[in-house]
């Protein structure tokens, strides 16, 4: 159980870290100054969550790894994030649809984590994160609606984003031995238990945005066991370059 707990927290931390890294790539490239600031804000929140979660994962692992050891000295095969969050940013519509799909899931997951009483350290991190991701979820949903129900061009663009990203969403709800152990311990219900509410909420947003929910049942998965897309390794090469070039230095 102890091993699997560490593994579970890593999944949460890596989701936050990898998405934060992607969003920070937007800095000074946003469609308007206000949106540049908003995306940086979300990236900062996620980075804060990642730091708290990776620190906790390192403590639970008990091998002396801190947040930076985990962020900078693991390979892509050792990262545990869902594939959705590592996908390249694409255009603003791609980024915002990815964000909406993830935010809706993150809210449900943090709600459950914040209200359990088995792992109080994790509950405290989740309670703080929950306030943040609720704001993110409102922001990304609002943008999906604006773009979906904006111009003909924006509608087409985000419908296409949605079609491309949809097959990556099912992975969020997959369960395996790790998530089952966590559910049995009472830390978090099975991922599958979030499917219905997530689907309902996402459909409501898509309806308001006049977008069509894809029918695709394709399932692109592998992140939780370290089998990622080709994109992650490039992201890590960039993120880890200084630490790996000057091992042992303090910054």
């Amino acid at each position, binding site marked *: 159980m102890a091993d699997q707990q560490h593994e579970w927290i890593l999944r949460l931390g890596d989701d936050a870290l990898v998405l934060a890294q992607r969003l920070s790539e937007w800095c000074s490239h*946003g469609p308007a100054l206000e949106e540049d600031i908003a995306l*940086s804000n979300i990236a900062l929140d996620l980075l804060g969550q990642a730091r708290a979660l990776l620190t906790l994962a390192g403590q639970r692992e008990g091998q002396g790894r801190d947040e930076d050891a985990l962020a900078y000295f693991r390979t892509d095969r050792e990262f545990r994030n869902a594939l959705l969050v590592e996908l390249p940013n694409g255009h603003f519509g791609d980024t915002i649809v990815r964000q909406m799909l993830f935010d809706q899931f993150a809210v449900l997951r943090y709600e459950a984590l914040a209200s359990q009483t088995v792992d109080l350290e994790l509950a405290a991190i989740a309670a703080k994160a929950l306030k943040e991701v609720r704001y993110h979820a409102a922001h990304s949903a609002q943008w999906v609606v604006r773009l979906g129900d904006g111009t003909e061009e924006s509608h087409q663009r985000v419908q296409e984003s949605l079609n491309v990203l949809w097959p990556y969403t099912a992975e969020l709800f997959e369960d395996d031995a790790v998530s089952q152990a966590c559910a049995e311990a009472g830390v978090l219900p099975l991922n599958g238990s979030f499917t219905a509410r997530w689907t309902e909420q996402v459909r409501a947003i898509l309806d308001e945005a006049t977008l069509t929910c894809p029918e695709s049942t394709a399932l692109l998965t592998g992140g939780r066991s370290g089998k990622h897309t080709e994109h992650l390794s490039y992201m890590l090469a960039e993120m880890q370059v200084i630490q790996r070039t000057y091992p042992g230095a303090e*910054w």
Partner: protein
Amino acid sequence: MTQEMDLNQRFEAYIASDQKIEAKDWMPDAYRKTLIRQISQHAHSEIIGMQPEGNWITRAPSLKRKSILLAKVQDEAGHGLYLYSAAETLGITRDEMLDALHTGKAKYSSIFNYPTLTWADMGAIGWLVDGAAIMNQVPLCKCSYGPYARAMVRVCKEESFHQRQGFQIMLNLSNGTPEQKEMAQDALNRWWWPSLMMFGPNDASSKHSEQSMRWKIKRFSNDELRQRFVDMTVPQAELLGLTVPDPDLKWNEATGHYDFGPIDWSEFEQVVAGNGPCNRERIETRVAAHENGAWVRDAAAAYAEKSAERASSQTSAA
């Protein structure tokens, strides 16, 4: 004619008595134009200035450093916003100002046309560039134009955090491995002279200074501010154990200031003229962001319009 003279005299007297001019007050055209030029240039500098530091966010060497740098660059975007808003009170739109930036009609601080080559540049920029910006900007908190002065109060509060985080990076590097220390020295070598140039031409050849001083848009001369910066920074470099790249630099007992060597103004003029190492990239990146975002801004505008229509047809139906 006489009425105009009256207004002018009252305006000058008002400023002389240290009162603030507000957006709706009468002001001479030249005052308005000077302010628009200065405030928009300042806003553009904040926005373009995001790029050299943004360049290292994804590669920051620790999660803590990443988070501090991201917050810093985000602040600069916020400064751009406050300043564009302050300029808008003078009767120009943000779109017009951005257009002037994108077409090369408007200037921004030349310092941002230098490349950031190593992580130490994040330290040097915070320490020196934000440090020089503070020197320039603190007096602007008392500038005669109210909206600008108030924007600068908010900006300056954040700038001191920027300078501290830069100095902290330099301190860590200076106390680090030999490679890190070398990185820090190299960054100081490259950023020192461009930082001194941030204060603008020598007083003798500065074309806007005199009137701006009278109008209290400017409170100290370029050379005064530059000297203050040198006096403040040299002891800090000593604290870091780094060498300022100026063989003529020495303490002058008689004046109580540091003497320093001549600035290579031909380099400054080259960079201002658009021939710096990164002028083209900076503008291209800015223009690309703007153009790639056009469909997003259009969509937001179209959606806002539709929503307003729906709201008004609902109220009229009710």
